[in-house]
């Protein structure tokens, strides 16, 4: 059915090859899950990828084309997506406009909306997990940390999401969080697209809290009830939230609606943080410039 032509990557639990599906001559990515050496059997990341990708079928979520066993290895056949948003942001030779940013953000939010309406949390949104197809479509990928929204009383681990994109409730060790953690990550990605440098690059978990609050202000019980119950709360430095003018200076190319949307996604209190529907229906997506059509994106 498939060929494995070239090894293009290797992670802790998988080796990724580029290949072809013979019957359709379609280029594919084959994720070969390493099985030896895992004392607890099949790795949790592989189980999650298979479990959640099987249930979703959306233009902005990577497609799981097939799964098969070969030489006692589990192989995930995924659609081939040669680029990612991190490459674009870092490559200063690539110029992109506000319309481009709006298009990438729109596709990201549609992908997150589809996950959340299936009650699936991604829990590792960051630029290099937002892959780009040859036709310009942006797709959420790497569901190795995903999980469904769990039962109400269930305890969820706070040790998820790559540090720079980790929501404040996770930094404080929250165990009953919601999809709001994904929305925070999208907010940070949006800021990074506008700045073209990482927005909240903490050196370690403690520094991440400091960097986050220095940039956006330290939340208090007033705007985030019960935040002071987090054990690590009273050890942190207090910073005032930035004024609107300060934000305008930081994001010079951003319109007022863009700032509203970003601030909505970067609202400290997860209760008040904007959800995917509120973001997708915000003024930002109906004001000019229109989002670039995917085929014309860089």
């Amino acid at each position, binding site marked *: 059915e498939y060929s494995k032509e070239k090894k293009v990557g290797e992670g802790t639990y998988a080796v990724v090859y580029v290949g072809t599906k013979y019957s359709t001559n379609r280029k594919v990515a084959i994720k070969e899950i390493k099985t030896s050496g895992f004392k607890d059997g099949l790795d949790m990341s592989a189980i999650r990828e298979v479990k959640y990708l099987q249930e979703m079928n959306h233009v902005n979520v990577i497609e799981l084309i097939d799964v098969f066993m070969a030489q006692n290895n589990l192989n995930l056949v995924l659609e081939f997506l040669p680029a990612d948003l991190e490459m674009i942001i870092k490559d200063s030779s690539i110029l992109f406009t506000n319309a481009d940013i709006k298009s990438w953000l729109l596709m990201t939010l549609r992908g997150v909306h589809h996950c959340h309406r299936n*009650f699936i949390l991604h829990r590792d949104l960051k630029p290099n997990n937002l892959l780009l197809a040859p036709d310009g479509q942006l797709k959420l990928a790497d569901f190795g940390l995903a999980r469904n*929204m769990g039962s*109400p*009383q269930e305890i969820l681990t706070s040790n998820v999401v790559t540090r720079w994109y980790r929501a404040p*409730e996770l930094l*404080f060790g*929250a*165990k*009953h*969080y*919601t*999809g*709001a953690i994904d929305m925070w990550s999208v907010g940070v990605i949006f800021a990074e697209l506008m700045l073209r440098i990482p927005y909240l690059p903490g050196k370690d978990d403690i520094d991440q809290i400091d960097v986050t609050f220095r940039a956006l202000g330290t939340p208090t019980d007033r705007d*985030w*009830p*019960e*935040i002071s*119950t*987090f054990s690590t709360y009273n050890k942190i430095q207090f910073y005032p939230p930035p004024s609107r003018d300060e934000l305008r200076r930081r994001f010079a190319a951003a319109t007022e609606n863009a700032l509203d949307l970003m601030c909505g996604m970067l609202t400290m*209190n*997860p*209760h008040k*943080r904007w959800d995917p529907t509120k973001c997708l229906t915000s003024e930002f997506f109906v004001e000019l410039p229109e989002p670039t059509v995917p085929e014309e994106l860089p």
Partner: protein
Amino acid sequence: DIHKRYTLTDSGYFDPFIKELEAKKEYIASGFRADYVYDRMLTEAFM
């Protein structure tokens, strides 16, 4: 379906189990939301 077959009543439901959870400090601080739970359960009921 665009039109969900239920309406989340904002007057809140009689659901002692959820009510108890959403009153807990660590749940409030984590961002726990009863309406998200209700939405999920009602979606599973009307899927």
